[in-house]
């Protein structure tokens, strides 16, 4: 599948996407569309989430028990599948955030001093 703007927008790594999804859900339950929009907006349109990665990720996170899903009515009153963080997911978010911080700090350090 050819992705638009491939050259300007960075690919989101698998683990990173999981982190972003968990973070987006930390603010409250959302459906898939809202999650992708949220990530896009908060990152000032730098990060776009492809559906081809989003839904497999959501289902994988659900399989691991970090998020749980339920069907509810969306803001425009349609049937939509909402995801929210489970207690394990909240713990996992902390772990992943910490890992990401350390990683990015390390990368930054290398870029500046190496």
């Amino acid at each position: 599948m050819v992705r638009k703007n491939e050259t300007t927008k960075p690919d989101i790594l698998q683990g990173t996407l999981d982190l972003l999804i968990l973070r987006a859900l930390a603010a409250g339950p959302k459906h898939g569309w809202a999650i992708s929009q949220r990530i896009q907006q908060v990152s000032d349109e730098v990060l776009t989430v492809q559906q081809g990665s989003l839904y497999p990720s959501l289902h994988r996170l659900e399989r691991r028990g970090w998020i749980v899903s339920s069907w509810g009515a969306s803001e425009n009153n349609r049937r939509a599948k909402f995801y929210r963080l489970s207690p394990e997911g909240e713990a996992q978010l902390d772990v992943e955030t910490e890992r990401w911080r350390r990683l990015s700090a390390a990368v930054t350090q290398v870029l500046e001093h190496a």
Partner: protein
Amino acid sequence: MAFLDDFLFRLRSLVRRPGFEADLDDELRFHLEMDIERRMAAGASRAEAERAARLDFGAPESIKEATRDAWGTRVLEETARDLRSAGRHFQKAPAFTLAAVGSLAVGLGAAAVIFSLVDAVLLRSLPYGDPDRIVRFWEVTPEGSLFSSSDRNVADFRGQIDGLSHIAAVNFPPPRPSFGVGGERRRLQAQAVSPSFFKVFGVDAALGRTFDPADEPAAKANPAPLREVVISDRFWRQSFGADPGVVGREIELDGEGHTVIGVLPADFRFEAGGDVYVPYLLDLSVNRGDHRLGVFGRLAPGRSLDSVSQETAAVAARLASQYPDSNSGWGTELVPIDRYLLSDSDRRLNHILLGAVLLLLLLAVVNVSSLVLARAADRGHELRLRLALGAGRKRIVRQLMTESVLLGVLGAVGGLALAKLGVPVVRGLDVPLPRLDGMRLDGRVFAFLAAAGLVSSVLFGLLPALRTSREAAGGLSSRRYGNDVKTRRLRSALVMGEVALATVLCLGAGLLLHSFEALDGTEAGFASRSDQVVLTQVDLSTERYPENSRETRRFYDRLVARTKELPGVEAAAVTTLMPFAGPDLQNYVAPTTETDQDNFVAINWRAVSGDFFNIMEIPLLRGRSFDDDGPVRHGAVLSERLAARLWPGEDPVGQQLRWIGPKGPAIDVIGVVGEVRDMRLAKPERMTVYLPQRVMAWTSMVLAVKGKVAAESLQDSVCGVVQGLDPLLAPPPVTTLERQRRAALAQPLLGLSLLSAASGIALILAAIGVYGLLAYALSQRTREMGVRVALGARPFQLVGLVGGDGLRLVGWGLLAGTGLALLSARSLGAILYETSTFEPAVLAGVAAVLGLVGVLASCIPAWRAARVDPVTALRRET
């Protein structure tokens, strides 16, 4: 728990699959709708928005596929689909399926049978507690052969060696008491063992108790017998219907009551086995030089074999200086029990059989690999189509591997069925291999079959799968996929490999056959092939018939006299030795002038009565034999070589020899006879001394009867004479010389039979391989054949063309196999008799057999090639 959650999720998504699918559809549709709405809100028309959103969204099917992946059910579903499709493929190609499953089943089945034998005999741990702490305690004679021990020596070893926590003696030969129950008498196999015996072997009774070592507090002269018995599980089931109340019951052995104190575990085995174990108490009245006890010991905790060996050697040296007459020059050697129970040649045979198993498995793998490769090449078009439609190469490889594993499973199931037939046959053979009776199809053999099936299916499947998928990746356009040169070369190499493996197995079997024939053809020096000589093992009670007593002498005198009177009997004699079974008695002799023990000659000796040489047809070269009546007189008959060694150039008759050592008794030499091989056909004969049975009147003797008629008709009347002399005796077992000789050949015959069976199977597999390759190549070359015929080729030229291919394959395979066999031949050398590992006759024979197989496998394809109709062939597309 995370693992469990994960598994439950997968299971739920698999079971509630339709619901999951519908939910996923809804979820994705909702996403798309939201995007469309966003675009319309930005001002696009409904149609434009929908188009843009769909473009942006991508292929919903591939998103769904990726999401299903996340459910973790995809692998399962695809495998199920692959299995179904494999089943369809197998149905469509019954010949291929039959050949592949058949070769696997035969290969795996034969391998499983051999494995279960090797497992029972060699691999399975011994049925003892901590078997690696048990040692066989040998005394070593001055010239270095392992020897049994004497009562007084054992008592001293027990008192002076700290490194062995228990030392047990086993009396030799094992007693065979007569067991009386309800008026019937039965001869039992017994073992007379020290009370500490079961402590040495680390075995507790399954019921009741075993002997208490405290029952033998201190050795003394003529100890009072301890009337207790421990019985085997088998005897308990056979004679007492597995009654748990048997403990404490009194049973009658040789007319004496014995109390059953325990029943042994079902898996306990000791040497020749035993229905009953009776206590043997060391008897200090026996001469220190009378070596007839087998000794076993258990290493004390924390002591190593080396340190205990040093300690026992020191004790033996002390005894030698203390009792120079009997112990001078004698040492000790400790042998771990597993090495003692399984001789080096038995061990070697088992390793060779294991090697044969591996070769056979490898052969089956190569054979099926070649078949699968041909089959996969036929399916090139289908696979190409699937690749073009978007299946990944990995996916194709997985599909092909699933088929292979299915073949492997089917083959293993077939192999199991064959093994179920084969195992009882091999176990039922009367072969003196220790623990052969423990051979069975159990979890270990199942595990072996499952592992062998799985590993082989991966091995035979992987190569074709990788090749085919790579080839198919070449695209739909290339048409001659099946005939791809590389694939054909690969198949040729595989078939050559098969022939090479079959050659190795056939050469092995051929060498064993050569060796067996040499052994079978060996002249034993007596009438070993006669079925007119009937042998009866007579076992008297040692209590009622003590050794060298008047009662014993009288019993055997009367036995010989009465047997001679039987109608149809030509001659009768008794001997201490059951030919080819033992016991092998050893001693030392020298001329009476010899004063140095070191110059005494180690000999075998047998005690026999007068007609023995006549019955056995051992030629009497000089002098005379023993008298069967009149006053009891000593005397010795020597074998030819011994006479020449002791008195070179002199007449030995009339000389005197010294028995045992310089202080031993002197015996008149009265005769000289020919050499014999009466213990082993293979072993170079040791020289023999015969003594008069009336002087050495042993409790157990063998009655040898020569009939004027076939032996079978004499059995009952001989038994009648034995029981008529003593009604307490059980009917003795009766055999013939020829049967004894056959029994001595049973073990080499077993190795030969198993290896021959493996070779036969290998030949069939190799033939299938060669045939399959040629037939397939021909089907690819029909057009070429047509052109050749059209251009004037004669049928015999085409036959030569195809047949030549076949013979070339066999030729190269034969060459490679011979090379391989020569490299590994040394392992076989140790069990061969008068056969070199490079035996031209065997090589020629194997080459001829393989050549014949090559011709047979080539002849159908060659015949078909000769009948190619050029018109039909040229019209054909491929």
